[in-house]
């Protein structure tokens, strides 16, 4: 894999992560538990959509074959998506969706901070733009995790189960493959070992404050970064891509 191929693959992974999580968040728009949270969820989802759009556009430039952001988002099949398995998991209840997002944001913030220093100016600029938003995201999710964990007996029990269920999808974030290696060596990309340490200490502290128990060492699911997805992604894409699949090339 040459450096250009790695950069394109890496950019698409970032874009897919942002798009798939935003689509999950959009699914619960108008179902928020309170008005403030409704607005917060929609705003955060919008940040991710904006990031996905910039990343897909950048990927289109890198690829040089004239593919637009919409082509990447709506005209690719399941096996072509490279998002993390964690992000495609169904919303479940509010605690499940919150834990999924929290675990990702704690990773994403450090990833973006590192990417602001990477040698590809396009990616560095997008990361610098996004990192300011993701700081708000992480703060918001941390507060909710603490509120639910350190809330009532029922909320504590339910969010502990959410954490236990989601944990098996966290290992994939730190798996290093050829794309990550080339990004790191050729573009001063993120060091996932260092980011794992930052993530671990962030998550350990917040989970403790939420009076929750950190899940132990366990088997970790993997495959999203290689295009091997859980059955949930196909259903998500079927809904998201419906319009462009039915009316190819439709525009506003």
């Amino acid at each position: 894999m040459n450096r250009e191929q790695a950069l394109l693959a890496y950019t698409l992974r970032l874009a897919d992560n942002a798009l798939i999580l935003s689509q999950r968040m959009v699914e619960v728009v108008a179902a928020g538990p309170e008005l403030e949270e409704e607005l917060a969820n929609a705003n955060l989802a919008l940040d991710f959509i904006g990031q996905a759009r910039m990343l897909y556009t950048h990927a289109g430039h890198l690829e040089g074959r004239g593919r637009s952001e919409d082509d990447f988002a709506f005209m690719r099949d399941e096996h072509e998506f490279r998002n993390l398995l964690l992000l495609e998991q169904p919303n479940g209840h509010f605690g499940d969706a919150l834990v999924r997002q929290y675990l990702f944001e704690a990773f994403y913030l450090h990833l973006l901070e590192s990417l602001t220093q990477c040698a590809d100016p396009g990616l560095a600029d997008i990361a610098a733009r996004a990192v300011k938003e993701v700081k708000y995201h992480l703060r918001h999710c941390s507060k909710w995790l603490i509120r639910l964990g350190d809330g009532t007996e029922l909320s504590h029990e339910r969010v502990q189960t959410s954490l236990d269920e989601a944990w098996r999808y966290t290992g994939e974030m730190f798996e290093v493959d050829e794309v990550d290696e080339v990004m790191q060596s050729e573009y001063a990309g993120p060091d996932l070992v260092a980011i794992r340490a930052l993530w671990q200490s962030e998550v350990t502290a917040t989970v403790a404050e939420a009076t929750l128990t950190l899940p132990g060492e366990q088997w970790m699911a993997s495959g999203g970064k290689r295009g091997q997805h859980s059955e949930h992604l196909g259903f998500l894409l079927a809904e998201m891509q419906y319009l462009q699949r039915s009316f190819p090339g439709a525009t506003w």
Partner: protein
Amino acid sequence: MVAGSYSREQVLEWLAKVPDPEIPVLSILDLGIVRDVSVDEGVTVSLTPTYSGCPATEAIESSVLQALKRHGVDEIEIRRVLAPAWTTDWITEEGRRKLLEYGIAPPSTSPDIACPQCKSLNTELVSEFGSTACKASRRCCDCLEPFEYFKCL
């Protein structure tokens, strides 16, 4: 209009009349999203989005295009720049004053955010998110009015 028969100052004056679609009391110059204007054969305007997902980005670009066309500019290039990323520090003094008059508390580094209505500092955060990504919801504990706060970014 013949190319070059307008100055950069004139173009800036025109842009000063283009409102932000979400907070129409502010012009795009007040908001600090116009990063560069150059005038030669045509006009090039560089704009930066406030947030990655700001839904107003396309609307602003098309307003700029229309405003310049209305003044007879034929060759217009709109550039979207990401770096350096927009910050609320770029909202002008004039912009801050207009926000306050409009009832939105301007961004502040102080933890005490004054109520735009009664000026009391006795206010509290309701939510870090409001009707748009750039605003938080607060309420005044003295006059009891809810208000929006343009949060620091």
